[in-house]
């Protein structure tokens, strides 16, 4: 799947494959785009996120069975993030579920739409119609401590201060938008679902007020606040508890696909836990062993150079008793320190919307 905006990206944009999608990794420099996202406001081409509509009389019941969180009363002015699990409790995808008048709209994570769609179709039920809307809809995001100002200038100041996870059907230059207050990076975040036809104009319009940031800057900022990036973190066999994504699962719900497996993993205890670390030189590869007092206690899941920390930032999956902040471990022979999240404090936390 390719973004409809690809022809609008600057010539020297670096594109890359993420799952089933080709997405802009960076438009110029990742660190500069990161700074824009953390200090001002960034426009995001979220064309790698697939939009799947569920409608029909059984839509809510179906979604309730597929999603790991409770969407029974998800009204058309709310959205929420949830995991989608398979029967064995393995993560299929992490989605944003938008309540709609006639059902729900699911937004996949970047590049995971095909897998999500296949999973939905495999579990299809009578009365719930599943339609991939990616041929006619796409998503543009705004993220940053002043993203609310961009919303005010681009659309309407009233929308900027919408409560978190609120959704409004609105228009921009007579173009219909589903507008939502969301957020991946701890900064003020918004998403606009728009027809592919009108997306280029909206993209250009947003760029009059903010600068574009690519997938690399976005994922870095997500990691810094421990927002799951499942394509890195959902390693084969890992339970949601090991991944640390159990906040996207609600086991008080009566039933959903994967519930039994999550419960079993929870009751069995054991397994590993994920913790952030910093300190070593360079960026260790996934799978690099992690040692404590010379003993192998786990492995690196994912690591990057964090612009915010000015140092290496990684996630390690280690024995549960070591998944705590402030411990000294060894990664590839170098000393690292475990961290408590968020690893950097988003500027938005101290900036009010006015």
């Amino acid at each position, binding site marked *: 799947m390719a973004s409809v905006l690809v022809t609008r990206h600057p010539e020297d944009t670096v594109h890359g494959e993420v799952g089933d999608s080709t997405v802009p990794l960076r438009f110029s420099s990742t660190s500069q785009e990161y700074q824009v996202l953390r200090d001002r406001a960034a426009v995001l081409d979220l064309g790698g996120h697939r939009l799947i509509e569920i409608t029909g009389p059984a839509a809510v019941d179906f979604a309730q069975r597929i999603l790991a969180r*409770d969407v*029974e*009363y*998800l*009204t*058309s*002015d709310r959205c929420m993030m949830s995991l989608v699990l398979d029967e064995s409790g393995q993560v299929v995808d992490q989605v944003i579920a938008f309540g709609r*008048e006639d059902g729900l709209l699911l937004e996949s994570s970047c590049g995971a739409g095909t897998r999500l769609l296949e999973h939905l179709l495999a579990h299809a039920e009578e009365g719930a119609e599943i339609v991939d809307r990616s041929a006619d809809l796409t998503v543009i995001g705004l993220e940053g401590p002043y993203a609310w100002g961009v919303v005010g200038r681009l659309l309407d*100041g*009233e*929308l900027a*201060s*919408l*409560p978190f996870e609120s959704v409004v059907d609105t228009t921009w230059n007579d173009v219909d938008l589903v507008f939502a207050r969301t957020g991946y990076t701890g900064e003020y975040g918004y998403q606009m679902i728009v027809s592919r036809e009108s997306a280029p104009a909206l993209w250009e319009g947003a760029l009059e007020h903010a600068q574009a940031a690519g997938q690399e800057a976005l994922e870095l900022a997500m990691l810094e606040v421990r927002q799951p990036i499942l394509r890195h973190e959902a390693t084969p066999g890992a339970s949601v508890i090991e991944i640390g994504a159990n906040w996207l699962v*609600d086991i*008080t*719900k009566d039933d959903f696909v994967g519930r039994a497996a999550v419960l079993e993993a929870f009751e069995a205890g054991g397994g590993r836990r994920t913790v952030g670390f910093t300190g070593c030189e360079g960026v260790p590869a996934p799978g690099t062993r992690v040692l404590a007092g010379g003993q192998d206690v786990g492995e690196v899941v994912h690591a990057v150079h964090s612009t915010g920390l000015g140092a290496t930032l990684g996630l390690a999956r280690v024995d549960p008793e070591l998944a705590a902040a402030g411990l000294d471990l060894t990664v590839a022979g170098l000393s690292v320190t475990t961290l408590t999240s968020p690893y950097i404090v988003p500027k938005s936390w101290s900036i*009010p*919307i*006015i």
Partner: protein
Amino acid sequence: MALRPVVVTGLGIICAAGRNPAEFWTRLITARGGLAPIEDEAFAVFAARHAGQVPDAWIDAQVPAGEAAGDRTARLALVAARQAVEQAGAAPAPDRFGIILGKCQATPGPAGAYQPMHHTADVVAERLGLRGPRVLVSTACAAGGNAIGLARDKILTGEADAVLAGGVDPLLFGTYAGFAGLQAMSTGPCRPYSHSDGLNLGEGAAFLLLEPLDLALARGVTPLAEVAGYGLSADAYHATAPDPTGRGGASAVRRALAEAGLTPGDVHYVSGHGTGTPANDTMEAKVMRLVFGERAAQVPTSSIKSFVGHTLGAAGAVEAVASVLALHHGVAPPTIGFDDDDAPADLDYVPNRAREMPIGTVVSNNYAFGGNNVSLVLARPRDPIPYDPTPRREAVISGLGPVTGAGTGIAETAAAIAAGHHGAGLAPSLEGRTFAPRSLWRHMNGLSRLAIAASRLAWEDAGLKLPRKALDDVALVFATGAGSAESTGGFDDSIALNPNKPAVLSFSNVVLNATGGAVCQTLGLRGPTTTLCNGAASASIALDCALEMIDAGKAEVVLVVAADETPGVTPGAPAPAGDGGPVPYGTGTAPVAGSGAVAFVVESAAHCAERGGRPYARVAGTRHAAGQGAEPVARSLALTGAEPGLVLGAATGTPRDAEEAAAVLARVPGALLTASAALIGDCQAATGAMNIALAALAVRDGLAPALAGLDEPLAGDLGSYVTRPELAGPVASALALTAAHDSVRGAVLLEEV
């Protein structure tokens, strides 16, 4: 279509900035506030000490010699009420003279125990001889403004020729501790709209006397202002924080202007809520920008609370008095203590000095815990105009949601009635299904959970499927005698233990409208909303309010929810020993206190028909009668319409059931009499609502609860009572009664559709 203009002809006020309207106004225009450190040493435990207190001498000097001294709340209210009546010089017949009082706090009587919420209104009404409409509105900090709007409605319906409308609240230690615990207090005098570092609490009472313009002119009185319209809205956002977008507040202003037939361009001055908390002041600026757009900076807005502090339930009335005086004198009162050197304001807050200016229209806004918003539009009085009678629209009851010891939902309840089971004293069950998103549910107290479950069930029973946009206009009227006993008790216990460690979550649920706010938040209802607290008569008064909303075209669908709880009778609690239920109208019986919530959907008949709904019954008439003793019973029964075949009475199993039975048997000798209390016990407002719900059920489905164990009725013979659940068939009409003894009684006549 022109409605009958309703005007203000009398004002009364007692607050920290004056003991009467003249003194209050002088101090407003000379910028002399009344905020001062509290001298009472009990308050020394708090870092914040400033408040707007009323000196005792101001009250004592205005209470007539020889009058039995009531509690401080009643004395404050009486002082202001008498001033307003005296200035207006109105003396309509007692039955045509009403009182609508806004009050936020439950206040203690002489022995220290809480009085019924409506007690203060009863005291004022009895002393002044008012037997017309009597309503206690408790939308927290918006109650005073709300009362004035409801008073206008009562004049438009023709139920009253004059209504005293206002608010009262004293300064209470517990409330002070609660606001301190929320970190909402300023340590000095509050400075709304500039420093905005917190509020000061205040106390006082204010009343406006409302009457129809034509009657005022006929008496030769010059009106002070017209109450041109009002607007209510629900944020459906949060228990204490205002919706940060300001859309809830803006919607109240827009509704008020629409009712007044005016536009934002007609507004000259806005009396803001102006508490001085950062959340409020930021949100209000948004409301100003949303409503007035480019013109926002040209519309002066100021905070009367900068003079008197936040007088809670009185605030809206205090500010309405200031607004009427501003109109009358052509002067905008200032916001005092204003200092925006650090960050100059982009709106005109009338800093520190009163401003002479032409004022033809004032908007007065109030925002409350529970996300309740109210806006009043006050305008210069017009010349008399020809007016049309207030339109009446047929309304039906289209959905029932009882959640009581006898069952959860109407199907379970009907089954219990048919089987002759009773659930008095049993805790309602909320097991087996969810009624709200888990993220909200886990924060809800017991009463809110009951009310949410009842609302959801009534909604589903009505078969309502409305798009999100339509929910913005669905109204909610919450009826409760005492609100959450759990939260009130929990909060009071925490204060007794340590006033600096109040249970803040409980505090946010102490306000009576918290439960209504929770229902709005859960169901996403943003239409007009209010909370009425007239004890066990609350539900029929709430139905009246719902009908007024439908008549005025403010809503097509109104959810009426009544809920009350008895400590100990909560979901999960064990059943009481023994199975003898209460026997209403029986001798030697006693009431059984319970917990429950009963919701019903009131809908315009046209709306229900259009969507293919199946109504239970149409509302053929309602009537309320205020006063003490047995006398109001007969008066409340003087409803026109067909003789009902069934009466669901307000009896609960006390000796006073006799007065009701005697009056009913005299008035409708052919009817069968029963009472919901036999089925669910005495759940105060919820039992009143159950009478209305079961009257609707009897009209459509021919089922009514039997009075098990009745063998010696207090009046008449057994043949006049329902002793088996199956009626001979559906009754063509049924009468539901409600009663707050020695205060107000209600009657609701339902007929088959």
